[in-house]
């Protein structure tokens, strides 16, 4: 049993680089130079910057459900439980229907 993703996530024009630079400026971590698009400072490592962004992004998506993906799989006779895809945050709606 496996899920087939029916929609591809959109790619809007806010980039991780833009957000990283803004973070860097707001936290006064740019020093005497333009903020880097891959910042690594004495206080925050690059992985910490990215972890903070990813965590906030996931929380935002979880709270707002502004981007929704659809996935489908064929049901199996006599099977009542189905594991969700590994990257599933939250189920919004489920439908069952015959195909064809």
């Amino acid at each position: 049993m496996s899920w087939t993703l029916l929609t591809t996530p959109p790619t809007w024009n806010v980039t991780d680089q833009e957000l990283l630079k803004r973070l860097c400026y707001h936290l006064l971590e740019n020093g005497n130079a333009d903020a880097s698009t891959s910042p690594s400072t004495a206080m925050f490592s690059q992985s910490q910057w990215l972890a903070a962004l990813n965590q906030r992004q996931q929380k935002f998506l979880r709270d707002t459900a502004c981007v929704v993906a659809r996935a489908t799989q064929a049901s199996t006779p006599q099977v009542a439980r189905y594991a969700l895809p590994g990257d599933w945050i939250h189920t919004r709606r489920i439908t069952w229907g015959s195909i064809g």
Partner: protein
Amino acid sequence: MPYTQVTRAQLRGLLRNRLGNAAATFWRDDELNTSAIQPALRLFNLLTGFWKRRALFNTVAGQVWYPLPSSITSNLRVSWRDFPLSPSSFYDLDFGRPIWESETTVSGGDVPTQPKVYSIGALNLIAIWPADAAGSNSLIVDGIAATPILSTDASFVDIGQEELSGLLDCAQMLAVFKESGKELTEALEVFKKFLKSAGERNSILLASSTYHKFLGLDTLRQKKPYKLEGERLGAR
């Protein structure tokens, strides 16, 4: 046709004038571009839906769900072969017509012979009912466009000069976030001016209770408190 009146460099100069003499050393050019001007444009677009875009699809036979292009961040109006569709909610569709996803324009009975209703699944997804059985018909989505990115100093801000004052109010508030303290507190008044100018452009915003509350316009609750201050049980 986009506006070609003010470039990013000119807008940044106007912002520096507002921020004062120290601005040239306290804020870097890239910093103002990244942390003040571009976010102000995004916020302005979010509140007013200033930039709009139309997307044209061909329907696919029997397809209910249609992903939207990333050039549209929120949809406002959908039409099928130039017939406008009525907005609905999934709650209404699910509970009003439980098998709506299986119905097409040739289902017969009380199902219409052309799509009549659309519903918003998310920012990136819409559904139509009933699905177009034939396919290859035009589906037009009008929506709010993604905010333009000002990539160079010579890039023109696609906005009229009548909107510049409000936009600079917002950019000023975002810039002084770095200063924090009293400067930031005082800049909140400037930010309210930006919100008011956004409200003038978008009447939907004016109807929002959150908007009224933030601007301090929600005075009815203060005049008629539901509970008296210091109210306690027992004899008074």
